[in-house]
């Protein structure tokens, strides 16, 4: 037996859907337009604006830079964040409560403030070159996600299993890799993906830290828009979206998207 759905409810759902998907359709449409200006619906179909992305050296460079920064800062955040989350959960009773707050602090601070303070301290204060400064900034940006997500998976892990392994003769460090890590595998994958997406889409921190010669893709997009109004901008947005969707697809495959909503 199916209950009739109220027409208003259907209307609302359709509206929400249009609001969510509409802009995406417009961007994708514009990216495929054959015109030299942004327009929707597209007039003529062509992939020339996608080719144009790679024809512009600044885009080629920043795509590489963005990927490098996303990979490196995510890797660093995992290397720092996983042991931190482990220690926070394993020794929760002995540790002061504010310690776990410390690791989520960057989420609470508005990103622009974080970016500005990084500019003041890391970039101008310590004179750190642009690329490492970006790595530091992005690592700070994504670290809280690692700690949060890994903590969530560790909450379901019984540390007695770790002690059981040790009592059976497995040294503590080895036990971490053979017993603890396999049981937070899904958390590690989720954290990786979250961090990667966050880093590759970031504007607010990068805008303070990028400088002459080195920029990230989102910043380059902003710079491009200021000068040109051709469909390149739409196609590069589609590219960024495609990258994000590809990563999400991997999550969906391995864990289901509900995992991220938790």
């Amino acid at each position: 037996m199916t209950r009739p759905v109220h027409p208003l409810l259907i209307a609302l759902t359709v509206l929400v859907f249009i609001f969510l998907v509409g802009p995406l359709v417009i961007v994708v449409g514009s990216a495929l337009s054959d015109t030299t200006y942004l327009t929707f619906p597209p007039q003529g179909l062509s992939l020339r604006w996608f080719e144009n992305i790679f024809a512009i050296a600044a885009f080629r460079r920043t795509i590489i830079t963005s990927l490098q920064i996303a990979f490196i800062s995510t890797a660093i955040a995992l290397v720092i964040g996983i042991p931190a989350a482990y220690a926070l959960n394993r020794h929760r009773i002995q540790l002061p409560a504010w310690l776990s707050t410390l690791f989520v602090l960057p989420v609470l601070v508005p990103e622009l403030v974080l970016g500005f303070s990084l500019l003041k301290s890391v970039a101008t204060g310590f004179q750190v070159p642009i690329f490492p400064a970006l790595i530091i900034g992005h690592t700070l940006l994504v670290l809280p996600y690692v700690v949060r997500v890994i903590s969530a998976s560790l909450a379901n892990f019984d540390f007695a299993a770790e002690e059981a392994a040790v009592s059976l003769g497995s040294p503590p460090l080895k036990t971490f890799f053979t017993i603890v890590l396999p049981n937070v595998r899904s958390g590690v994958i989720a954290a990786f993906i979250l961090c990667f997406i966050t880093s590759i889409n970031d504007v607010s921190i990068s805008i303070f830290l990028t400088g002459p010669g080195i920029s990230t893709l989102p910043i380059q997009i902003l710079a491009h828009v200021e000068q040109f109004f051709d469909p390149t901008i739409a196609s590069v947005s589609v590219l960024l979206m495609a990258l994000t969707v590809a990563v999400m697809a991997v999550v969906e495959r391995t864990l289901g998207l509900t995992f991220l909503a938790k």
Partner: protein
Amino acid sequence: MTQKLSISNISAHYGQTKVLEDLSLEVGEGELVSLLGASGCGKTTTLRLVAGFLTPTSGTITLGGKDLTRLPAHKRDIGLVFQNYALFPHMSVADNVGFGLKQRGINGPERKTRVDAMLERVGLSALADRLPGALSGGQKQRVALARALVIEPPLLMFDEPLSNLDAKLRIDMRVEIRQLQRANGTTSVYVTHDQEEAFSISDRVAIMHQGRIMQLDTPETLYQRPANAFVARFVGFENLVPMRVVERDGAKVTAEAEGGVRLTLPLENYGGHIPDAFVLACRDEGLSVTPDLAMEGIPATLGLRTYLGRAYQYQAETPAGHLVANGPLTQPLEPGMAVKLVPVPEQCTILAPE
């Protein structure tokens, strides 16, 4: 392979809180000793010290003459069975059981043979490829047991291994544990807060209270001759009456309790000796209610009557205080009646005054 465990004068702290104080315990070769006590008395802490997950602030622990006190946990070679099983969730039953062998460099066919044999012994051969998540509580505990036994450790320790199982399974499993332990002759320490479980499974039981062992003895001795008031209450001596000897007459003494209550006690019923000051400890069935006021006993006024199946239990007010006594089913008595409470020597014992 079996070895003697000696715990000598260990103390343990969590931060500033003292949890164990000067605790000593010897478990002989092949012996099973239970640690029995209320929640928070330090049973798990004792196990964790022996296992090496906690370092004592003072004292030593030796196993088979070898000092373990400073040895890291993974080098102690002790089989542990945990309350919530602590199986490795991502490994099959067979891999769980084989884990300890793998750490010892035992691989290939030998590991498989030993794991299979162990699974056979605990009746889990059919489930070798399952993940722990797909097992019942009883099956999980069998895996945990197999995992600890297969490494043939010189010492086995159990921390409330049955408390997550239902009553019937608990009894079956404890018999099984005892049989496996006997067959291997493995020295064992068994933690529980269930008195029946401790008494049924152990060679000796240590009754613990606030980080100290109050008495360590065979279940029979604990049950019949507790050494102090704490243990007496623990094993069911509900009535503790402080008394003083007023007259010694060969084989008998006359003793007086508060309120001038006098009782004559034959020495032979109380181990041949009664000190001048003592505490008479009686179970509820150790005080028999009689309406015959001519009998020698503690004068009492009856209170609430409850039905126990084998007898009636009465609350009673006496000059020596509130007591609990039993009366025969053939003769129910009403609240308010004046009666005498007569000690039944087999259900009473004598303790040193506190």
